[in-house]
């Protein structure tokens, strides 16, 4: 199995995608990537392609659904939308992230 070379661990990627979709409703892959970059003001360098395997996994887990639609430029694109399970997962992911970050912060501050 190929070794992942993501700068962002997959878990965090889920969080970012879930949050982005929660904010914007329906988005296609390119829009998700753009949105993440704009929001983070290009701090996070995501390998854009890695969105797609992550989206496939999220489809299987039932966090998102996808349907085909047309873009503003009148092209066919697949739009992703959060499901109820996806919303729950977002809460779980955020909590987990905050717990981890909090712990790390405490380590840094005591130093």
């Amino acid at each position, binding site marked *: 199995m190929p070794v992942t070379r993501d700068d962002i661990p997959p878990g965090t990627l889920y969080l970012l995608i879930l949050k982005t979709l929660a904010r914007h409703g329906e988005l296609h892959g390119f829009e998700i990537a753009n949105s993440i970059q704009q929001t983070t003001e290009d701090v996070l360098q995501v390998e854009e392609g890695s969105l797609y395997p992550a989206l496939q996994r999220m489809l299987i887990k039932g966090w998102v659904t996808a349907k085909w639609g047309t873009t503003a430029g009148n092209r066919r694109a697949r739009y992703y939308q959060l499901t109820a*399970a996806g919303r729950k997962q977002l809460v779980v992911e955020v909590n987990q992230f905050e717990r981890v970050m909090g712990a790390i912060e405490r380590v840094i501050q005591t130093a």
Partner: protein
Amino acid sequence: MKGFGELVRRIGMLFHREQLSKDLEEEMRLHLELRRQQQIEAGVAPNDAGAAAHRRFGNPTLLRERSYIAWGWSWLEGLLQDVLYGLRAMLRSPGITIVALLSLALGIGANTAIFSLMDAVMLRSLPVKDPGQLVLLGTGDEDGIGTSIVDTELYSYPFYRQLQQKNAVFSDVAAVFSMTDDVHGFVLGAEGQAPADSDLMHVKLVSGTYFPLLGVQAQVGRTLTDADDTSEDDHPVVVVSHAFWKHTLASDPNVLDRKLKLGTTIFNIVGVAPREFFGTKVGEAPDMWVPMSMTKSVPPGWDAYKNNFTQSLNLMGRLKPGVTMERATSNVNLLLQQITRGFSDADLSKKNLDKLARTHVPLTPMANGLSSLRREFSEPLRILMAIVALVLLIACANIANLLLARSTTRARELAVRQALGAPRSRIIRQLLTESLILALVGGALGIGFAAIANRLLLRMVSGGLEDLPLDIGLDLRLLGFTLALTVATAILFGTIPAFRATRLHLTDSLKDGRGPSTGTKSLLARSLVASQVALSLVLMVGAGLFLRSLVNLSSLDPGFNRENVLRLQIDSTALGFKDDDPRLRDIFQQIESRVNAIPGVQAASFSAFTFNEGSWNDAVLVAGMPANQDIGVHQNVVGNGYFKVLQIPLLAGRTFGPQDTATSQRVAVISERIAKTLFPPGNPIGRHFHVANNKPENDYEVVGIVKDAKFSSLQEKPKYINYLSYAQRPWRFGDFEVRYTGDFGAIAAAVQSSIHQVDRNLPISNVTTLDEQVARSYTDQRIVAQLSTFFGLLAVFLSAIGIYGLMSYVVSRRTNEIGIRMALGAERMHVRWLVMREILILVAIGIDVGVPAALLANHLVASMLFGLRGNDPLSLFAAVAVMLLIAAFAGYLPAQRASRVDPMVALRYE
């Protein structure tokens, strides 16, 4: 249910993979294009924009791959790949594959089939309540009807009643008539009208306690109860079997309103037995059960209900809880003495009292039911089971060898794949998959083969008659076991080399696997081949013994000429006459004379018995000689032409003729043995004797002496046979024999139409030849001989394949060495010998081990052999010779190939 939803989505993805990957493709293309446009809009040169977009996107192939993995079916695709690859690899060497599959199929199939039959005949419990509590009086080794002071196997009905009342060890006792009455009865229509044609019905007489004792409930109506068995001849009721209800009564839902006519009596159907209930005798399936009280009304109308000393019943009891076999045995034996002595008509002469005092009845557990089949076939089945188990071993050894050989020839391929980066686990998985495919395909073929073999075996056991009613569904336990064994073999020997091959000296293998030959591998292969040879030899010797035994048996002189005799059975009870009605005799005589007139018929006669058909035994009492009641003389009632039909030579006097009539002096023709041992010295002709007892109507005058003939089996010593004429001693016949010349089919048709010209209603059955009937008496021997020969040859064939495979492998490994030898001047002959020598050494080792093993094993089958011993040198030498010949042949091809090696080619090859 979260996991479940995920599974459903995954499976959905499996079926829409095409679409999904197309979608993913489109999505990723769109992304790249949008990014490129954005770059151009941001002022990047169009040429660089695409590259920049790709850079930011990452490796699309890798991403695609990871998306597929996300779907979770990559293992399936990998497996599919392995399977396809494995199938291709198998097809590349179709010879090896076919042999491996065939040996697996035959090994698994034969084992399963024979075990299933063995299970049905010997091992399975009766489908009744708590069969473990049932015991039988005696051993179940005898059927029939007799009259004596006491018998350990068969009992009278009054004895059964007394035992039932007086015993302290059984919760109940039941009686079942030891024979089955085959009646041509009529199924009356719904309005009670009789049909034109009769049906053959197998009727079992049982005591009223039979069904309650067994705990068997009717599926429709009721079973028989003790109330049906209280007084003689006024309970015309019958319980029919499930099969009879289904086939003959077309599953009539109003079956309880239907009636049957057996003989002259109309019986009411009161119930249908459950589907799985076939009675208590394995290999028999009565169509119906009738209470013992009706015995006189069921043709042939045995008089077995009231006579204290007419023994015809098997008795069985259900042990009370906590009663041991010992206690039951002693109680039964105590009662046997008391009850027998207590009968008012007991003949308590000194001789009888002595006999009674010596009598001891053993009890036999009858959880598996009674069976005459078991007596005949348990030893053959055990032998066959051992044989097929050995064949399975040989087949496994063969598969091991084939897989070993193949993996060595594939060492280079595996090395290349490994060098190209295939992980070791992947290659092992690949080989494992291939072995599994082989084992599973072989297993599937084996199941198919078992299903066919099962039917075939049943037909063989049935000996050419209608198939025995045995439930021989494939035994799943054994099927599972043999499958597991072969799959394990395939996996073990298919993957051991895989581990070895993948650990390896890559470079050696890349050099075409001709590095230093690894000795251990061929040592394993060699010992496999040597043990195959040894096992095959054992089987061959066995086959030789059984074949020779069969030849000995079938060439025995039965004392009559078995060739060119047609025989059939009629059921004269269907005519509804009493035994001694002169009209019956007239019909027999008319049939004999009509058939005699058919062109091609030399003689025709009725007889009570011909061969291997049971017997009527009674003492022959000669005035002036000590009366020996213990010698049961076979009594045969025959027509005038009988001796001409069977060609039993007349030694003195005359045979029966038209002068012997109902009113003339009763006469008898005796066998040589009777003349020599039961009569005083001097010519017996003209002397008088009595049959059974000294009543005047049993007085006979000897008019002729004939040569001894076999009566029940070919192996028996000459029996005492006394022939009587049916003109003087009325008999309801079954057997009719015709000596003929010409075509059997034409004669058979002509004989049957002649019989029907005399009486249209006479049912005819079992039209066959005397030769067949004699052959049927050693069906068990024939089956063992045929099957052991088949499996013996199969074993030798498998071993030959093993030898061939091993030597081909050895030769290919040594091509280089052989090339050098030949370049240095070795002769082709010498090279050939080099290879042949290896084979001969292997075979010699195999024979060395095989011969003592064969001698040991054949000791065990001595009781199945006739006219020779287990250490028969001819069979042994023949087996060794066949083994050597086949081994030499199998080894010759690779040896020949070795000798044709072109030294230059061999040396340059590297």
